[in-house]
């Protein structure tokens, strides 16, 4: 049957040329579409680019963080996805840069109000040492569960952070205490100003897990 189909017998040279040409044409047909589709992955994974520009956004004040619980505060980042080429030019107004709202869980370490803030008025500026101290005592965590990314929240009854999807449980410091999550909650890069305002960046790390990947969903 194959011999019947093959009307002209090929020489070895012809066969090799056909192979080379086939490889070239095959590559020309498949590589561009594949790279085109993988564009976001290449930019994010290989080039480390993010949809969210690197900028500090105000979250709230350290004076508003209560003792004994983790409160949810909202922060708005800007998000530039495919609809924005990332280089707004003069004739492009940038109206398509849209807000990306993140819910941030904020708590004091072990729920205890730091001594720095006890009986302190908000008028008085914080010194560098005090700010460093506060920075070590505060937890600023993404509310996205480390398991599948569902939004977690503080449970007043259980005194822990719980996830509604698959029962992930974290303590007030965002450390994993139960359920399927592989590690604790992601933490934002943050700084505290002299006035006690917290600023966060859309950058994350996990305590004790230097290799944890990005949370992606927030």
């Amino acid at each position, binding site marked *: *049957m*194959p011999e019947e189909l093959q009307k002209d017998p090929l020489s070895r040279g012809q066969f090799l040329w056909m192979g080379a040409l086939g490889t070239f044409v095959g590559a020309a047909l498949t590589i561009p579409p594949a*790279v085109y589709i*993988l*564009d976001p992955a290449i930019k994010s994974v290989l080039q480390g680019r993010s949809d969210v520009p690197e900028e500090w956004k105000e979250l709230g004040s350290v004076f508003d963080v209560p003792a004994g619980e983790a409160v949810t505060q909202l922060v708005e980042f800007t998000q530039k996805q*495919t*609809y924005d080429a990332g280089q707004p030019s003069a004739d492009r107004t940038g*109206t*398509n840069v849209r807000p990306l709202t993140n819910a941030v869980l904020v708590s004091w370490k072990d729920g205890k109000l730091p001594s720095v803030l006890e009986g302190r008025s908000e008028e008085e500026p914080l010194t560098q040492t005090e700010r460093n101290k506060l920075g070590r005592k505060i937890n600023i965590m993404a509310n996205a569960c480390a398991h599948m990314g569902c939004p977690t929240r503080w449970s007043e009854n259980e005194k822990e952070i719980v996830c509604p999807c698959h029962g992930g449980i974290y303590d007030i410091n965002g450390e994993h205490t139960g359920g399927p999550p592989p590690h604790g909650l992601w933490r934002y890069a943050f700084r505290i100003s002299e006035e006690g305002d917290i600023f966060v960046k859309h950058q994350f790390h996990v305590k004790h897990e230097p290799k944890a990947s990005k949370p992606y969903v927030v």
Partner: protein
Amino acid sequence: MASLRARTRQMGRDLTDWMEERTGIVSVMQKFLYEPVPKRGKWLYTLGSATLFLIALQFLTGILLLFYYVPTADDAWDSIYYIMNDAYFGQYIRGIHFWSANALIIVIGLHMMRTFLSGSYKAPREMNWVVGVFLILIVTILAFSGYALRWDQEGFWAWEVGAKIASYTPFIGGWAITTLLGGDTAGPATLSRVFALHVWLLPAALAPLIGIHLYLLRKHGEYGAPFEYAERLSELRKQRHLREYEEAEEEDEQE
């Protein structure tokens, strides 16, 4: 013990036979790949295949464009800007979509002209001509709606003008333009409609019609093929001979 070469050859043969027996792939390929075309004007008979190839390109690159295109009035233009300036090979993919669409219209025109001039629309192939007319209509609307999807000044106003033309339809003008615009003004609803037409409705209508077009072509074969000529010509000659013979007889009788 047979040589390695002989064994490999036998294995290939066995595999092909196995596939043929179960799927009929070899005979199907033969049936689809070989179609006799007339000796006269042979290259002109490739225009249909060229059309099919370009439409296949439209489908493939169109699917790829959908990975980035955002069909909303706010984002449509920006998403194309992204494809053209930022996405890897975006310019290349969209370039193929755009230029092959342009070429498609030209090639369809030539294909239609060849069909007309070679008389291929005549019996028993009339229905294939009719299907072809529907195909060219669909492709024209596809090209026009694709233009509007860019949502730039050109595309937007082209659709406006097209809708406005439709508004002059007697009796149903108002129905036509509000249906095309998705309201009595142009806006986000307009773009949604154009998107639905361009990406879903028209391609879905196009695909089965192409199937019918090809089926009918295969059913009747290319018109004007030498085999067909031969049969018809011999028939004509026979008739002429008969006529001449009868005329000669009549003349003989009159003398």
